[in-house]
């Protein structure tokens, strides 16, 4: 008997597959902290957890794993995530990056799946683009509270699985020039937007379900594109109207020729690469055996038409 007996239906070797996988998790706030907790329970073995912030009082309405004592200790969100995972697993491989994800690209590049639980449209678009370039499945979660006037509020949100070659978050209409412009002009400023624990949890749970579908043999045909809408007032999470229409769309926003590292050969960046290698040595609290850093080969082979 193992601790995973009750999830053995995920497939004969699901336990080892989940342990071998490395998850990149960007944003460890309301949404991301649920994902840390659930993937810790699920048995994911490798983590690159990224967040530049520490816990503050206004986080305590939703930050899973955060305790009131962490406020006084000014505990970082990555430390809370690491503590949560280590409380659930004996030998996890964790690279905590207490910084923005822009300073963790060397680490994120080696992940099997990247989940973005970030506030801004700009960050989401750049993170998805980074994931696409490196042929890594990207899952985006986000929630918002809309003021309908007359003291009526609607909780909305979405979960999107964005795979290389398939519809992206721009195809979904989540990213638009108008939204990016509004955000740049600070009209859509993030940071103090309303957030609640149960909606974050519902969206994160759906994302963890997608992670399990991608990594284990549970689904014979793992999903290639998913776009779910959350209505927190009704308590529903359903496929977006456009999900079926977008299923076979060829995304024009991420051309296949833009795969790979475009500046790999440019001498100018040798120094930057060396910096990253140094940082990596410093950050890797539990070094991962190389074999653990392989991407799900089936996913990549499919994209390349092999």
């Amino acid at each position, binding site marked *: 008997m193992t601790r995973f007996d009750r999830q053995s239906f995920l497939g004969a070797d699901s336990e080892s597959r989940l342990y071998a996988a490395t998850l990149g998790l960007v944003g460890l706030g309301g949404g991301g902290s649920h994902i840390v907790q659930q993937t810790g329970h699920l048995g994911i073995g490798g983590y690159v957890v990224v967040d530049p912030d520490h816990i503050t009082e206004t986080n305590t309405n939703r930050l899973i794993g955060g305790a009131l004592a962490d406020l006084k200790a000014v505990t970082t969100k990555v430390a809370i995530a690491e503590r949560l995972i280590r409380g659930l697993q004996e030998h996890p491989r964790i690279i905590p990056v207490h910084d*923005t*994800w*822009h*300073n963790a*690209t060397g680490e994120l590049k080696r992940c099997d799946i990247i989940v973005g639980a970030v506030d801004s449209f*700009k960050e989401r*678009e*750049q*993170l998805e*683009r*980074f994931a696409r*370039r*490196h042929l890594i499945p990207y899952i985006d979660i986000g929630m918002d509270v809309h003021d309908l006037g007359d003291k009526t509020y609607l909780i909305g949100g979405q979960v999107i699985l964005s795979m290389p070659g398939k519809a992206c978050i721009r195809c979904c209409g989540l990213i638009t*020039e108008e939204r*990016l*412009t*509004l*955000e*740049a*002009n600070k009209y859509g400023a993030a940071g103090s937007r309303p957030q609640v624990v149960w909606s974050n949890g519902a969206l994160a749970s759906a994302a963890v379900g997608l992670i399990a579908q991608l990594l284990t043999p549970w689904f014979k045909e793992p999903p290639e594109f998913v776009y779910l809408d959350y209505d927190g007032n009704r308590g529903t999470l359903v496929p977006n109207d456009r999900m079926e229409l977008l299923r076979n769309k060829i995304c*024009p*926003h*991420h*051309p296949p*020729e*833009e795969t790979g*590292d*475009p*500046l790999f050969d*440019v*001498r*100018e*960046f040798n120094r*930057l690469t060396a910096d990253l290698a140094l940082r990596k040595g410093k950050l890797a609290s539990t070094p991962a055996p190389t074999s653990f850093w392989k991407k799900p080969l089936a996913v990549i082979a499919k994209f390349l038409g092999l």
Partner: protein
Amino acid sequence: MTDPTAEFAAIQAMHPSASLHTEGGNPVVLLPNFKFRAGGRAVEMALLLYPSAHSGYVTRLFFERKLEGVGKSQNWKEHTVLSRKWWAPSWKDVVAAQPWTSMLGAHLRAVA
């Protein structure tokens, strides 16, 4: 609409080590070891010119390093473009309908 090939040729005439890349199908110009003046001092670093809409701006210039408090630039933020980290100040309204060489100059005025 500008012709990227001709525009890039003009940039390359000025800075021979420039290279042309794409991001999201849009042309992007890398200018390694570019020498310019910032806050009255000579500076040398890589620049990345993005001559179309990016992150809510009509065009952008990205800097290898942050030049905080230099010139009129403010609100420097990190970006990842071409899989590398860059810095850009909030510097709006450098229009796309102009030669790339002028566009570069218009962006550099943020840190002049």
